């Protein structure tokens, strides 16, 4: 391998979630393409642990830090500390707007909620003739802002879209069995539920299993999920799930690598439209610094095999190139 | 030894645990400066009675009259405040701390520093050593945890700490059961000294010789009732054993408050 240009630390918030584990592989590969070695540290979903990781990493004087915050805002002090120590900070996946950073690459949680709302409206209209019906929304942990922002985006859009009853329950600690139990209980008391929207594909696993155990046919009760993990795509293929709102994880990671040199060398990042692994992405200069937003797509039966979805786990083999 | 009101009177004390009636109407009394031996077979209810007098258990019914006033001790702390000291049959030691801590349990010597009470460790150690020595008990080190002491050494701590604290009435539930010959002798002497200070003593034992050595009066419990209440000087070990095992019953009514020597009123 070529001589490495330096070490980058990736602070990943948890490993109990396919998106996160997938992102480690993607970031490690793409950063390798542009000449950086990546070391990942698992925050185990604990804000305090992630803050202490930041403290430790500062002592290790890395070329840069990629941060996917356990908590959106609690990382603020940590970011300030790192930048004060002269370490460039790139924000990944979980957008932080309360303090400046050197580069941000996200999909946008509110937007995921919007996409889901539109897809669900479409599905309900196809089934019931118009945008009406009953949706069971299963959140992740109610203490996790990620799920709450999807909820917010979803509900504000649904309010505009028509007359849909939404029942919301949280799956504590993002635990799949909890999601399954909620679905099972709700199907008894609200047998007229048309569709279940879960906030992560691994939750859909348990929900689909419950539907199956209750003798439901695939599609009899529709299932929509967000994040586009491999199991989600499997469920679409088997017909249990109708739509998965993809987070463009691969592209999000690739974007980091494309701009890594510029960030680390302190060069200016120009706003505009860039091609990131084939996706058209927009760089804007926000209050908190340069920000690239990559559109997420709705995955359905029709396009489920598209290799560009990270859930198919065929990351592009072409190396990413640094932006000139 | 006068005929004033007794120090402690029990009237028709009953105690049941679920279906089991441990005490079925016990009435007796003890005066200041009097030593009463409370005898009875295993399971007769002696320890239960002690716990009631010591505030550890409420009676199911009946009256406890202390210094002429009816009292309902809600806790051992209250009984203690009123002047009742107790040595329990099932030892009440904290085996996880050392001898000194146990000796001064609940009455630690302290000095205040900026209003904060600080333990006076050295003073307590010296006092403990003195008391145990007087009791004739050899303990390798006072800083050793009680868990490492022999049965008799433990009992010695418990027995010797009570005299240290004075009070008005002392309840001793088989305090010599694990003690050696010499330690028992000194224990009996100690009771004698306590009596001379005008303190009332109730002593439970299974050994007739001990009862007859120090007691002014002997009260026998049998199946939860008083089966005998006699002046020591007017009875004999054989007679008392007979009362215990149910051969005879003898309650000397009206004689309960008599002085221990002499027979007149």
């Amino acid at each position, binding site marked *: 391998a070529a001589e490495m240009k330096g070490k980058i630390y990736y602070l990943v918030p948890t490993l109990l*979630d396919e998106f996160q*584990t997938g992102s480690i592989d993607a970031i490690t590969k793409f950063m390798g393409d542009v000449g950086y070695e990546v070391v990942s540290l698992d925050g185990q979903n604990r804000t305090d642990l992630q803050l202490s990781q930041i403290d430790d990493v500062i002592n290790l004087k890395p070329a840069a830090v990629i941060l996917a915050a356990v908590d959106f805002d609690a990382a603020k002090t940590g970011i300030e500390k790192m930048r004060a120590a002269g370490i460039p900070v790139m924000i990944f996946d979980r957008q932080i707007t309360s303090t400046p950073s050197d580069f941000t690459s996200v999909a946008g949680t509110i937007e995921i909620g919007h996409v889901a709302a539109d897809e669900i409206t479409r599905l309900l209209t196809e089934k019931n003739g118009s945008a009406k019906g009953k949706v069971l929304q299963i959140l992740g942990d109610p203490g996790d802002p990620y799920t709450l922002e999807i909820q917010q985006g979803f509900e504000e859009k649904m309010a505009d879209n028509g007359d849909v009853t939404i029942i919301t*329950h949280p799956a504590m600690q993002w635990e799949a069995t909890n999601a399954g139990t909620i679905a099972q209980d709700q199907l*008894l008391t609200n047998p007229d539920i048309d569709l279940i929207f879960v906030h992560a594909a691994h939750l859909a696993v348990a929900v689909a299993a419950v539907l199956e155990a209750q003798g439901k046919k695939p599609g009899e009760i529709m299932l929509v999920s967000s994040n586009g993990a491999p199991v989600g795509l499997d469920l679409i293929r088997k017909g249990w799930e109708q739509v998965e709102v993809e987070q463009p994880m691969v592209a999000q990671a690739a974007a980091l690598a494309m701009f890594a040199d510029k960030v680390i060398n302190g060069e200016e990042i120009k706003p505009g439209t860039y091609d990131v692994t084939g996706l058209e992405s927009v760089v804007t200069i926000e209050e908190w610094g340069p920000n690239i937003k990559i559109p997420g797509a709705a995955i359905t039966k029709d396009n489920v095999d598209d290799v560009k979805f990270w859930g198919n786990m065929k990351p592009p083999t072409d190396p990413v190139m640094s932006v000139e | 030894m006068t005929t004033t009101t007794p120090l402690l009177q029990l009237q028709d004390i009953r105690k049941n645990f679920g279906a089991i*009636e441990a005490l079925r109407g016990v009435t007796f009394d003890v005066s200041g400066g009097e030593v009463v031996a409370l005898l009875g077979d295993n*399971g007769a209810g002696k320890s239960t009675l002690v716990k009631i007098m010591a505030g550890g258990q409420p009676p199911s019914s009946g009256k406890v009259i202390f210094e002429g006033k009816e009292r309902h001790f809600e806790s051992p702390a209250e009984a203690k405040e009123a002047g009742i000291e107790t040595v329990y049959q099932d030892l009440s030691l904290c085996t996880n701390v050392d001898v000194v801590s146990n000796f001064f349990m609940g009455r630690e010597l302290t000095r205040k520093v900026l209003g904060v009470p600080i333990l006076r460790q050295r003073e307590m150690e010296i006092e403990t050593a003195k008391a145990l020595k007087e009791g004739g008990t050899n303990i390798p080190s006072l800083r050793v945890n009680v868990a490492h002491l022999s049965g008799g050494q433990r009992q010695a701590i418990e027995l010797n700490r009570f005299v240290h604290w004075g009070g008005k009435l002392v309840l001793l539930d088989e305090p010599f059961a694990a003690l050696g010959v010499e330690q028992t002798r000194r224990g009996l002497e100690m009771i004698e000294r306590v009596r001379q200070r005008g303190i009332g003593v109730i002593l439970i034992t299974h050994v007739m010789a001990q009862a007859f050595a120090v007691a002014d009066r002997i009260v026998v419990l049998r199946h939860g009732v008083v089966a005998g209440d006699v002046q020591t000087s007017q009875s004999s070990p054989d007679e008392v054993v007979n009362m215990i095992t149910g051969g005879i019953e003898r309650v000397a009514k009206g004689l309960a408050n008599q002085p221990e020597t002499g027979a007149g009123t």
Partner: protein
Amino acid sequence: MTTETATAPHNSSEMPARRRQVLEFLLDNLVWLILIVVLAVFSVSIDQFLQIGIFINILQNSTFIGIIAVGLSLTLIAGHMDLSIESVMALAAMVVALTFGTGGAGGALALEPAWLAFPVSLLMALAVGAIVGTINGVLVVRLSINAFIVTLASFIWARGLVVALSGGRSVYGLPDSMRVMAVDQIYGIPLLAWMLILVYIVFAFILAKTPFGRHLMMIGGNEVATYRAGIKVGAIVTATFILSGMLAGFAGWLLASRTAGATANLGIGMLFQAFAAVVIGGVSLKGGQGRLSGVFAGVLLLSSIQTAINVMGMPPHYTQMIQGGLVLAAVLLDTMKNTIRRRYL
């Protein structure tokens, strides 16, 4: 003045023996009473709660916590504890899912004939549990390390192993023969629920009627005494940890069947629930005390509360508060026991 006295402590005359017995029985089984009261209140106050399906759900959803609670109870009764059960359950589920799962990270092993997957996967799950249980037991017994810390370490590393094995990925899709447990019913009651009931019957029997069960109880009461009495304390305690592990493995196997796969955080949070159920059910954390019938009621009670919350449709932010409050309320009810006993018995 010489008379014979009666020969034995008498029955108190204040309360007829019969009524006392009934009262004693009720007090001994107060958790069940509370469960009934709670279910009645929910049935009356929560719309659509009162239907067979809900009660079956309560039973079925109790399965996993219920089964690991048995292992926890056994170790607690013996004066130790087993915190690893939650992670062992997840580990067993993950091992099985990784081997047989067809989607996600699954290895899609196909056996011939197909039904073989059923016994083979069961054995795998039990073996996983037995291995972790043996490690726990040996460390506790041979090296006499505190069970809390041993099993806390297992709790951490076993979950870590789940993450490591799966690479954090989920598995979906198990062969049909392995989903029998989650799908089939007997007399309208899901097999999962039957398994739960079976486990409780078997272990309640073991505890009450066999020397093993009795020794467990006595070891928890006074280990020195049992040791002096020549009871093989070490062997029994080790066996208990192995049993606890195997029960967790079994629960994991059922859980894999139920979720038709496994995820890296499967079962997270169940340890606390199991602990709560066990303690509500009357098992003492100091050892030597507890009956599985109480634990069963405790499990059902918690499951009922959770189901009620699922059915009620309240703002999600309040579920945890309500759960905590209800647990407390249930325990408060239970303390009436002492008051009643003191006053009337």
